[in-house]
């Protein structure tokens, strides 16, 4: 079975930067695997090691049962789609598609058959005579896909292939990609920093940070049961609210919120509260006072930003988009309501959360202590 295995793979660049540290994971034959993480987390380096564009410092990468560490890129039988597509500007679409087959001395008739087949499948058959400069962004993206597909490779590597498309096209191509994979079943590694792509596309996602694999699992599973603060903060949009709390005698206290959590060991903890799990409190529920600041109606729901008393924790993501959001001694949090529930700015309300939805992380290590149940 041709799957793809990373076995204790590390990559250290000259100068000592460690891009990937001791990565071990197995990708099954035909699986769609996502590498996700903020920029600089090592996901692209991991991909480039599979392609043979970066040397592996230690460990092995295996395709099927063949170790490919020292195999040159041309002999790996792996195809890759680059972020900027890397279409050969001096060749027509036809020749772009045929290039890889020609280099492998495929028979001419066979080349023509495959190019015709793939270009028909991707709907680029009327573009074959054009050059890349004469194509739109979406068309280039499809040609880049076609160039990879036409080779019928053992594995398919995609490096942020949607990031140069506009928002609408991105949603469409995302769907196309998923359909294509379902139809062809080629082992695929897909690198992205976009957690929406990670959630929607993959059969499994590998979350990376600072070169280290944080969590590996089905997208929903990673979303529901993040193993540490990084994954909790990175997966989900709007992101999970992380509040510093103290656990004492089975009660976790963050600001004016006291949640009974049976069996919780005493000490510093972090409470993880998903925006969609925060609800207006009914009488008698443990709750916190929420001051509404900004209301963002989305049509199918409302995102409400506001503050509660307490201290916010910033997930150690290294991602610029997640900035510490502190408002004096109050913590800025986000909730997501049904569209019927629309508070106005300045309004004060009490918010509650069902205890089984609360994620609890160790205050020092960031590892999960109590997993929420969905």
């Amino acid at each position, binding site marked *: 079975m041709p799957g793809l295995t990373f076995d204790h793979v590390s990559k250290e660049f000259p100068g000592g930067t460690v891009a990937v540290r001791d990565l071990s994971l197995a990708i099954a034959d035909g699986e769609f695997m996502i590498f996700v993480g903020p920029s600089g987390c090592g996901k692209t380096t991991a991909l480039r090691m599979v392609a043979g*564009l970066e040397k592996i410092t230690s460990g092995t990468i295996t395709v099927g049962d063949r170790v490919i560490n020292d195999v040159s890129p041309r002999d*790996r039988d*792996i195809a890759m789609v*680059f972020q900027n597509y*890397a279409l*050969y*500007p*001096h060749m027509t679409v036809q020749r772009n598609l045929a290039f890889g087959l020609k*280099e492998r001395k495929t028979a001419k008739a066979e080349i023509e058959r495959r190019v015709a087949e793939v270009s028909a499948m991707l709907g680029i058959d009327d573009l074959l005579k054009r050059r890349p*400069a004469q194509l739109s962004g979406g068309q280039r993206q499809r040609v880049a896909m076609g160039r990879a597909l036409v080779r019928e490779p053992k594995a398919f590597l995609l490096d942020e292939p949607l990031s140069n498309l506009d928002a609408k096209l991105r949603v469409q191509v995302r769907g196309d990609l998923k359909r294509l994979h379902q139809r062809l079943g080629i082992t695929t590694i897909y690198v992205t920093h976009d957690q929406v792509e990670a959630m929607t596309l993959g059969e499994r996602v590998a979350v990376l940070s600072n070169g280290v694999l944080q969590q590996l699992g089905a997208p929903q599973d990673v979303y529901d049961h993040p193993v540490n603060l990084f994954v909790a903060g990175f997966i989900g949009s709007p992101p999970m609210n992380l509040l510093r709390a103290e656990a004492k005698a089975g009660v976790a206290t963050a600001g004016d919120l006291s949640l009974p959590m049976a069996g919780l060991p005493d000490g510093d903890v972090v409470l993880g509260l998903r925006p969609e799990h925060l609800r207006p409190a009914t009488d008698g529920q443990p709750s916190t006072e929420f001051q509404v600041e900004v209301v963002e109606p989305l049509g199918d729901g409302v995102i409400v930003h506001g503050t509660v008393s307490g201290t916010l924790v910033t997930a150690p993501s290294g991602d610029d988009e997640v900035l510490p959001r502190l408002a004096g001694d109050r913590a800025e949090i986000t909730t997501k309501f049904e569209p019927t529930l629309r508070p106005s700015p300045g309004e004060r309300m009490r918010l509650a959360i069902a205890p089984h939805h609360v994620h609890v992380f160790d205050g020092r290590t960031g590892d999960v202590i109590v997993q929420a149940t969905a």
Partner: protein
Amino acid sequence: MSQASEIRAGTALPALEEEAGRDPRGDRFVFSWWHLVLFPLAILMVVPMIWMVITSVETLNETRHFPPILVPSGIRWQNYTDVLQRAPFARWFLNTLVVTVVVVAGNLLFCSLAGYAFARIKFFGRDVVFILVLATLMIPFQVIMIPTFLIVRKLGLIDTLGALIVPNLAGAFGIFLLRQFFRSLPIELEEAARIDGASRLGVLFKIVLPLSGPVLATVAVITFLWTWNDFLWPLVTIYNPDNMTLQLGLTTFQGAHQTNTHLLMAANVMSVLPVLFLFFGAQRFFIRGIATSGLKG
């Protein structure tokens, strides 16, 4: 920005050669005072050449006349055939052509290979070797001429076209220019080609070089000018008239026909014409080449 425009941007050079438009106000009869400067300047630059052409179709008696005869009585093409009869001009032309073509081809090939290695391949000793290559760019030829002569003599090449070809087959200038250009190309293209199954050589010849047209043309043009117009090195290494290049041949012809000015000018016109034709044909590349580099024969 699209890939293609990125690549073009990498070679972006001043559009000196572009057709200068009319007065932007659209009035073509506006008189610019700059004509009063430019016209005399242009005359000053072309007069020596026009005077050469006129003299080349005069009779000997017309040239021996003061004040000079500006409009000859007739056009005497015979001067040109006379030159061809009196000196192995065709031979010199052929020699120069062979030397120039081989040297230009050699530079394109060897400088491309080396330039690509220095640009993209990490190999042992690369940076040291590259600095060494660059250092030779600073050394005037006159300083190394004597030992180079001895080396070429040791190789048994003295008084052969080989003496003019072999030492000039690769130069630091071409390597440097090509390396800089190769580095400006998007590396993903080369990575894609390698994953597509191309070898290093395949990447260079099928991807990189087809995208390097303008810079290759620049290297070709500069090398051409340099080789075609070279004088000192042929003077040192070539003695047999049959092996001479045009520049060297011209000097021997001048020595033998000092007073036959009309023939001398005809010979000179013939020596200049090929370069002028090439210049008019490939003006863009000449001017770009000179603007980027700055080397004249």
